[in-house]
């Protein structure tokens, strides 16, 4: 094999590439929603929950942030069946990505929440809102708006990290790349193309998030001006 590049050898594998792309996109979209939803709950309970719950959630956040994603994935996919909990590869990928994104995002959100002054919550209560209402409108939404750029970056990091789920045989983009290079022996071309696709996905995700953010937090931006 000479040092020449031949991308035409990839043409017969378009359907595999599309299947991989679809899986990666679905995994990312679903886990971004589930991960952020779980993060809100974790962040809330880490501030307002019972002491034992706060301690337990703190442990979950620290363990997740200080171990590699691939080990978390292996633990869920290979380790849990040892306890009698059997799950298939794609479910394991969903769970691992959700738990990973939630732990990082909860920590980011907590920083945003603690920036809200206590008096504002009381003001909300005085205006006749219930505890949950005032929490939602006075604390949560402004905190979300404040840390939104960091949350975007974290969701993108999880998307890029999802390349690892190929290792438990989930047919994602990376799995498609491995599959193709095992057939046509053009590893460099395949990985170059797939890397480019990931780059475009990361770029597209940032764009999409920023557009959504502009609509969601429009009134907040008006407030800051």
């Amino acid at each position, binding site marked *: *094999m*000479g*040092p020449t590049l031949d991308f035409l050898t990839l043409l017969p594998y378009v359907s595999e590439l599309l299947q991989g792309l679809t899986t990666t996109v679905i995994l990312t979209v679903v886990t971004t929603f589930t991960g952020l939803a779980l993060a809100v709950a974790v962040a809330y309970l880490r501030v307002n929950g019972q002491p034992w719950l706060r301690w337990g959630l703190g442990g979950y956040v*620290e*363990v997740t*942030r*200080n*171990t*590699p*994603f*691939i*080990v*978390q994935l*292996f*633990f869920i996919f*290979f*380790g*849990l*069946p*040892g*306890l009698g909990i059997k799950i298939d590869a794609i479910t394991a990928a969903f769970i691992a990505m959700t738990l990973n994104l939630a732990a990082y995002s909860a920590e980011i959100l907590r920083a945003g929440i603690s920036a809200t002054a206590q008096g504002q919550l009381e003001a909300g209560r005085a205006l006749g809102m219930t505890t949950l209402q005032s929490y939602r409108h006075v604390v949560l939404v402004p905190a979300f708006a404040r840390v939104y750029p960091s949350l975007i970056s974290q969701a*993108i990091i999880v998307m*890029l*990290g*999802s*390349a*690892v789920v190929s*290792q438990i045989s989930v047919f994602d983009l*990376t799995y498609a*790349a491995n599959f193709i*290079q095992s057939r046509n022996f*053009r*590893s*460099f071309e395949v*990985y*170059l193309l*797939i*890397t480019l696709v*990931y*780059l475009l996905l*990361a*770029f597209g995700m940032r764009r999409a998030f920023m557009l959504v953010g502009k609509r969601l937090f429009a009134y907040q931006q008006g407030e800051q001006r």
Partner: protein
Amino acid sequence: MIEFTFWDILRNLLLATRWTIVLSLIAFIGGATVGLVLTFMRLSSSRWLQRLTALYVDLFQGTPLLMQLFLIFFGAAAMGYPISAWLAASIALTLFTSAFLCDIWRGCLEAVAKGQWHAARVLGMNYFQTMRHVILPQALRLSIPPTVGFSVQVIKGTALASIIGFVELTKAGTMLNNATFEPFTIFALVALLYFALCYPLSCYARYLEKKLYDAGLR
């Protein structure tokens, strides 16, 4: 068939942890060296150098580390220079680390107020004197907590070297699992060992961050 006791598993994992630590050190030291050069390229007055460095950072931050590893490992082989998993992992992790450190350090240098540049120049200092006596000492203080924090990402990143066959902690875990079929114990231990390496660094980074905050610098 050889029987593995709990202590056999733990001993083998601990032996493999050495390689995780060595690879992390190579990546961090190599990445810091390349990252330092990149940071000054990014802040140079040449538009061209600035754009090139920004592109480099975007490329490494916008693609999976696993793909960077594959491209270097299989790319070198495809070009006719097959390299070992060990070398490929060192190169990929060095480049990955350098891109992130460049971004962190650029932010720290830019965080020192612009007025100080002008003030130093007015006092008759040249570019290097200003850098050395005014900007760098302040930027250095700001940069230590996020740099320590990022070292955790480097350690976790080395786990991906297992995929191209480099035997470090994660690979040792999968190999032991194939021999013993005790995935729960093994991967829990692997996670625990990573935690033991990373958590002290995370705590130290947080402590340094708090110290800066208390000093009124953040």
